[in-house]
């Protein structure tokens, strides 16, 4: 049985940012190709999980990209409020990644 580790133990970068004013994009960079491939293969990061994590009604709005050249997984989600609109709490989208720290990846 594979043991699961905290994502922060195998990721060098976990971050979020606006991808232009209407989207948040969340990037997870792994520390090596092997951990990246295990994370992708595990399927832990999937549309349903992300939709639940960010309280999105429609999981089809979640986009997940695996990018082997950078050992990275990118997640892009719609913003509830566009950058700077009434009720937005993160103009640059720089602190939206925090829930990702709760992920555990089997390695």
């Amino acid at each position, binding site marked *: 049985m594979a043991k699961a580790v905290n994502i922060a133990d195998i990721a060098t970068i976990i971050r979020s940012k606006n991808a*232009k004013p209407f989207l948040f994009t969340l990037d997870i960079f792994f520390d090596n190709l092997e951990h990246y491939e295990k994370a992708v293969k595990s399927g832990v990061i999937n549309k349903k999980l992300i939709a639940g994590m960010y309280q999105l009604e429609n999981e089809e709005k979640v986009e997940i990209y695996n990018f082997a050249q950078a050992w990275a997984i990118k997640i892009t989600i719609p913003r509830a409020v566009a950058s*700077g609109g009434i009720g937005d709490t993160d103009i640059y989208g720089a*602190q939206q990644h925090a829930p990702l720290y709760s992920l555990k990846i089997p390695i």
Partner: protein
Amino acid sequence: MDEIRILTPNGSIGSGFPEELFAEGMKRNPQAIAVDAGSTDPGPYFLGKGLSISNKRMIKRDLEILLLARDKNNIPLLVGSACGPGTRSTLEWTVNIVKEIAREKNLHFKLATIPGDISKEFLKNALKQGKVRTFESAQALTAEEVDRAANIVAQMGVEPFIEALKSKPDVIIAGRAYDPAMMAALPIMHGFDEALAEHMGKILECGSMAAEPSSGFEPILGTIRKGYFLVEPMNPKSRCTPKSVADHSLYEERNPVKAGLPGGTLDLSRTIFEQTGRMTRVSGTKFVKDAYTLKVEGAAKVGYRTVFIAGVRDPIMISQIDYLIAEVTKNTKAFFRNAAEDFRILFHIYGKDGVLGKAECLKDARPFELGLIGEVVAKTQELASTICGYLSHLSMHLDYPGCKATAGNLAMLYSPENIDAGEVFEFNIYHLVEVESPIALFPISFEEI
């Protein structure tokens, strides 16, 4: 021409860059200096107001170094999205700074300016003809929204820059532009591969962010040749590695391998990144042509804001914070019911869910301290100020279950406690518009300085 070297001082004019590193770049004899000067990242206020996102002192500092360097080497300087939202007002503001520097330093040059504003008539016509596409905002554009916008700009592609370059200007200052356009224009004009030129522009436009260590405040040199390009940070202690450059493909992008740009999509799925000394060699990027579209951005005013900032340290008050917020909101709405349509009340509770809101995963955390922002957005500043005054006073003194601290609920941070924060805008246009000509909307004018 075997190669073109483009020097970019930083990720955005006005953010500063080390002069000695820029001088290193100039020693490589670049054929152009190209830099981005704007962004939508700081939010819709700047587009709505038509104001720069940076202070004049910083813009002037950066521009002065660039204008002196371009004069010495007699090469063009290309600046896009000047300065911030890239409206006509911020373009003129930037041009005035350029002229001020020219007077002070006795510089003479041929200046081209290219505004990026879009008229409401044009956009409404495009709407009627079905040329407007909805994408990331997920809201179809209407004529009413076009009318509501305070300012509307479109991101010009490389074509208006190339058109201007044909008249051999020394300095080009453009309004809103697709970020890589300034870096890609000269190479594309000289017949270098469009995909590689645009990709090189995408890397350069952030300064040395694609280097290791990463810095958007340091210069970077791009060298394009037949079949590939090279990127090299000007800080001798940094390197561009295949990993650092590939990593950068993700930055602020929706998709790491496909990027929409005026006229098509840049496809990085077969891109090859290779190490060459301190540089990274990039090849294999493809450009998939499509109908020519421009990204149009508009911002509309939605009201005026007043806020108060307070801390909460009493543990019983902290445990009753939801009660307090619900009661003061209900009570304030009832008091101002005659203006019910004209205002909104918002609370941001740092230490509870101030950043993530309903996505906050730590529901049962017991903080020892909370930061509280009360916010009113109303039709006029006077109304926002009045309602926020009522709201903050009530929040301070409302009785709550179990209250022992009967002298006040909040540690108010400032006097005056209610802060008028001015106009509030929202991005109400963020759409793609199909156009027949990539240059027709962007009139170029020339001036001898």
